């Protein structure tokens, strides 16, 4: 407290110095007078009295100096002095200052931009109360565990369905509820689901998260307006209500308080808005967009494609979380949960799996598992973080090199200061102040760059994907603190070596000679060695960044040149989901064929087809299939696609063998209406999109087509036509008797083979695919082959759809080429950004090389002059300078390639069709670098060439 007070007084002491000095002088003067008077009284002569008084005081000026040191804060005053001096020095060499600040601004700005993205995407905690008590359930089992439906929403970053996952069926959730001595509550959620919304302006699609009724109370999330969901919304007979997210409330309802009690139609079902969630709660999984929440009990009414049989053990679709009871450890809870899970799955009323798959449950704290879109973005961001980190290093090395060159020209200044008594510490402090000052100036400009950069990157990310960029990046204190820290560290890192070197001055020669002495002294060689090492490091680092960029650009090129197996040009795609609006069986099929006829009649449309999913849309439909002649267990996961009439002709997929679908195939295929009506008795929902698995005409085979990959894998060197397979379990006793009987007789028969095409994404190898006749009772994709730009037809297509049913929204309207572009959005983003950073690194390395060489040329002006005077040709001088630069560049490139060989394997998972140590890329980058270095060397070399020997010799 006392010292704080003193500090404040001393801070105040920095101001109003004049008055304080006069005050002190008066006080000391009065002191002296009193002392002199007393001495005179004791009998001294006035002169002696004064002398004695001064001796006793220890000198007036010394006393004043001591006093002043105590009055203000000397350290602060010295700092201010250093800064003032530093600024003056920077102003004196504006060229150096501009290049250094710009270099640092690029380095710091790039880092600030990437850090603000990383901070927002990866470092923010999940916005719930006591997140570390909240655990998430994951199951683990051996292969072949899953059968039936499985839906994942990418909350856990799981890839495909295999031996682990985060989705559970509703009965398991109920069993976990019973573990009341472990968990204070268990919640489940799924989605978000695309819901058709009307009743608030034109129809739109919203993202609705399906949650259990105690979701909000367990997470500790309150309502900004009205209420959240509660126990009263739990039952199947409850009034349909929704809670809006704050963001959606603002954007769709303008934040109006009158939304409470307002009714909206979701999939044609009236829902009452009862509240708006807290502003801070946007979603549980980072980056997922959620507009509103509704309870699981509403699922039967909403007719969501993955929401059939929601109470069944066969439908795994719910993300499950629980809050641990106080005092219960994660291990205890996990043991109990695992036992319950195992019991229910293996020995429950309807056993789901055999004990050999060894199912168990793993509990993890939510923050570690729920990654949502973070999973996809974190790879990109880590890569970018590595690139910008290297760029900052290059920038540091560049500026250190520039400072080093400048240190030579300031040798005299340093020598003078040392001679006059400055300590080495003082000079190092002064030089470090200058370099930190430089990096702060760079930082200020860098923040401006970062602001622009973040904007550009988010636009890039959002532009490449239909989901947009789900984060809002705003500068805040965390980012400013990061930038501040980076400025200080950068300033010290690049300033330290030159600063220490500057104080190692041999005084006498430094004072006597000018900076441009003849070469040959040991000191010069030493300085040059450090400068060369810096340039080699810069070149090497930029080679690493460039090679990474090169590999990613080649990946993008390789993906672009993939032939997907069908004609992607001039195709317009869109999706309709009449099932959501209550269309049933035959109604759906009639709607599809009516739309097809009407669309085909549009001018500019060549042909029209439809299918369960569009090719290369990123979606896939897998089922377990048992193929004739293959072992019955466990069956194979097969990619399926239901194709409407004329699909293969329309997509230009060639027929290899047999025939494509004809009218009878569609009639013969099981029709969904029977299934829908049957399942409606237990459950108001029809089965999932695609073919009906429940047979309408038992015994009659369903005619299917397969691709060539299927034939290669299962019937090599055989005639595949007429071969049969069965979907689901032939061992389907485990999956329920209601199906089993029908399934046995419901087999598929191959009537044709078509050429291979890519199925879900470009990257995946072509897998066996079975094409079924399209008999959906739910929804599907239309493909329009057009004569010209398909986008010109969009409004005409919408008009047609409106005439058929004005409540039917068209979704995912896009072209096939756009669809493919979107698949490559991540690769394109990464290629663009890493390419940009690669060029940046190259430019910085060239600045470093240029700086070193022009410094060398200017300090060797006299040497070059002498060489020319005694007969050296311009060519020789050129060779002298350029040779020096090229040697450095080649050395740097060699080191860089060595480093790259070691680190590019971390990129391997992002590459396609190019090896991580691809020699072509490495050599191309090295050649590019040496060529650019040649240009950077040529400019100073030309200056050296033009040296006039007479001028150079008189130059001193």
């Amino acid at each position, binding site marked *: 407290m*006392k*010292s704080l*007070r*003193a500090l404040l*007084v*001393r801070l105040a*002491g920095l101001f109003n110095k004049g008055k304080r000095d006069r*005050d*002190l002088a*008066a*006080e*000391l003067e*009065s*002191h002296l*007078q*009193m*002392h002199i*008077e*007393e001495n005179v009284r004791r009998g001294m002569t006035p002169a002696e009295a004064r002398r004695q008084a001064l001796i*006793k*005081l*220890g*000198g007036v000026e*010394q*006393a004043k100096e*001591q*006093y002043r*040191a*105590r*009055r203000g804060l000397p350290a602060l005053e010295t700092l201010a002095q250093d800064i003032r001096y530093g600024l003056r020095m920077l102003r004196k060499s504006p060229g150096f200052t501009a290049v250094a600040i710009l270099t640092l601004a690029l380095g710091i700005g790039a880092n600030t931009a990437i850090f603000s993205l990383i901070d927002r995407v990866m470092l923010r905690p999940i916005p719930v109360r006591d997140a570390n008590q909240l655990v998430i359930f994951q199951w683990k089992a051996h292969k072949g565990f899953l059968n039936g439906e499985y839906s994942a929403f990418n909350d856990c970053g799981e890839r495909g369905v295999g031996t682990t996952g985060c989705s559970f069926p509703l009965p398991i959730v109920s069993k976990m509820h019973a573990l009341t001595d472990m968990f204070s509550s268990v919640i489940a959620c799924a989605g978000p689901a695309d819901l058709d919304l009307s009743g608030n302006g034109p129809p739109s699609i919203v993202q609705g998260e399906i949650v259990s009724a105690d979701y909000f109370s367990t997470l500790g999330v309150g309502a900004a307006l009205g209420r959240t969901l509660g126990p009263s919304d739990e039952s199947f007979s409850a009034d349909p209500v929704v809670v809006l997210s704050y963001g959606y409330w603002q954007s769709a309802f303008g934040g109006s308080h009158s939304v409470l009690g307002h009714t909206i139609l979701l999939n044609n079902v009236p829902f009452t808005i009862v509240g708006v969630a807290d502003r801070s709660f946007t979603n549980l999984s980072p980056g997922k967009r959620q507009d509103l929440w509704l309870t699981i009990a509403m699922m039967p009414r909403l007719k969501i494609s993955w929401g059939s049989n929601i109470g069944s053990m066969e439908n795994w679709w719910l993300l499950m979380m629980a809050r641990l009871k106080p005092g219960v450890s994660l291990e205890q809870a996990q043991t109990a949960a695992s036992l319950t899970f195992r019991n229910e799955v293996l020995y429950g009323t309807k056993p789901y799996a055999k004990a050999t798959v060894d199912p168990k449950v793993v509990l993890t704290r939510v923050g570690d598992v729920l990654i949502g879109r973070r999973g996809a973005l974190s790879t990109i961001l880590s890569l970018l973080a590595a690139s910008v980190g290297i760029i900052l290093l290059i920038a540091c090395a560049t500026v250190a090199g520039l400072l080093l060159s400048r240190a030579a020209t300031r040798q005299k200044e340093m020598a003078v200061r040392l001679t006059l008594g400055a300590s080495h510490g003082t000079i190092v402090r002064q030089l470090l102040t200058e370099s930190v000052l430089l990096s702060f100036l760079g930082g200020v400009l860098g923040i401006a760059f970062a602001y622009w950069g973040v904007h550009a990157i988010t636009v890039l990310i959002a532009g490449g994907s239909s989901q947009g960029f789900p984060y809002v990046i705003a500068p805040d204190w965390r980012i400013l603190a990061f930038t501040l820290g980076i400025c200080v560290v950068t300033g010290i890192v690049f300033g330290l070596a030159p600063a220490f070197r500057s104080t190692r001055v041999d005084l006498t020669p430094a004072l006597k000679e000018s900076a441009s002495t003849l070469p040959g002294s040991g000191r010069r060689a030493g300085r040059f060695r450090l400068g060369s090492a810096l340039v080699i490091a810069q070149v090497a680092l930029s080679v690493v960044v460039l090679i990474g960029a090169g590999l990613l650009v080649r990946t993008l090129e390789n993906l672009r040149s993939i032939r997907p197996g069908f004609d992607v040009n001039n195709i317009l795609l869109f999706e309709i989901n009449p099932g959501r609006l209550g269309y049933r069986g035959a109604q759906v099929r009639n709607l599809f064929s009516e739309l097809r006829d009407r669309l085909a009649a549009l001018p500019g449309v060549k042909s029209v087809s439809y299918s369960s999913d569009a090719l290369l849309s990123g979606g896939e439909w897998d089922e377990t299939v048992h193929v004739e002649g293959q072992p019955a267990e466990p069956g194979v996961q097969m990619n399926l696609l239901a194709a409407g009439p004329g699909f293969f002709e329309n997509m230009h997929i060639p027929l290899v063998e047999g025939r494509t679908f004809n009218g009878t195939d569609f009639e013969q295929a099981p029709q969904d209406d029977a299934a829908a009506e049957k399942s409606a008795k237990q459950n108001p929902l029809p089965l999932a999109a695609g073919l009906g698995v429940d047979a309408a005409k038992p015994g009659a085979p369903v005619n299917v087509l397969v691709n060539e990959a299927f034939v290669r894998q299962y019937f090599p060197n055989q005639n595949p036509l007429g071969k049969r397979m069965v979907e689901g379990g032939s061992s389907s006793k485990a999956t329920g008797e209601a199906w089993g009987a029908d399934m046995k007789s419901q087999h598929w028969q191959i009537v044709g083979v078509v050429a291979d095409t890519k199925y879900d994404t470009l990257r995946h190898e072509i897998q066996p695919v079975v094409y079924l006749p399209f008999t959906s009772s739910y929804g599907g994709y239309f493909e329009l082959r057009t004569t010209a730009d398909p986008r010109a037809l969009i409004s005409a297509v919408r008009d047609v759809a409106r005439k058929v049913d004005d409540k039917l929204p068209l979704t995912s309207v896009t072209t096939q080429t756009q669809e493919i572009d979107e698949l490559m959005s991540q690769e394109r983003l990464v290629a663009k950004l890493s390419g940009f950073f690669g060029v940046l690194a190259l430019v910085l390395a060239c600045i470093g090389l240029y700086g070193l060489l022009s410094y060398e040329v200017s300090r060797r002006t006299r040497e070059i002059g002498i060489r020319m005077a005694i007969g050296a040709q311009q060519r020789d001088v050129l060779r002298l300078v350029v040779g020096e630069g090229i040697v450095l560049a080649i050395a740097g490139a060699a080191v860089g390639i060595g480093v790259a060989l070691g680190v590019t394997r971390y990129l391997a998972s992002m590459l396609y069709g190019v090896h991580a140590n691809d020699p072509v890329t490495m050599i191309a980058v090295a050649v590019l670098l040496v060529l650019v270095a040649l240009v950077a060397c040529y400019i100073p070399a030309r200056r050296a060439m033009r040296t006039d020997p007479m001028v150079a010799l008189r130059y001193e």
Partner: protein
Amino acid sequence: MNHNTSGKANDRTNSKAEDKRDVQQGTLALMILKTLESMGPLHGYGIARRIEQTSDNLLSLNYGTLYPALLKLEQEGCIASEWGVSDNNRKAKYYKLTRAGRKQLQRETREWEQTAAIVARFLSPEGENS
């Protein structure tokens, strides 16, 4: 207490001018506070003279070091200063103890006495035996 300290010095040295002791680090502030407590408001020269007299001229006080010490005490709020007129009609800056300074004096006196007692025990062999 000042007498106490200087008394100890007296035991070991003769009062010759060249044997005068320098003021120990940190004790000057204590001496200033004690002087102001016993003498009331006083100017810098007066404080210096008083400290020397109290120590029987055994302490050699560099007057120049007195003023930074006064400034430090003032910055810490232990003393306050104002311009006044001396006995022989000369303008001088007078220092006086504040309430915080009085408390500080008491605390430092107590600490110093404890330290002195402990050191005394170590130095006297009889104390060690008992």
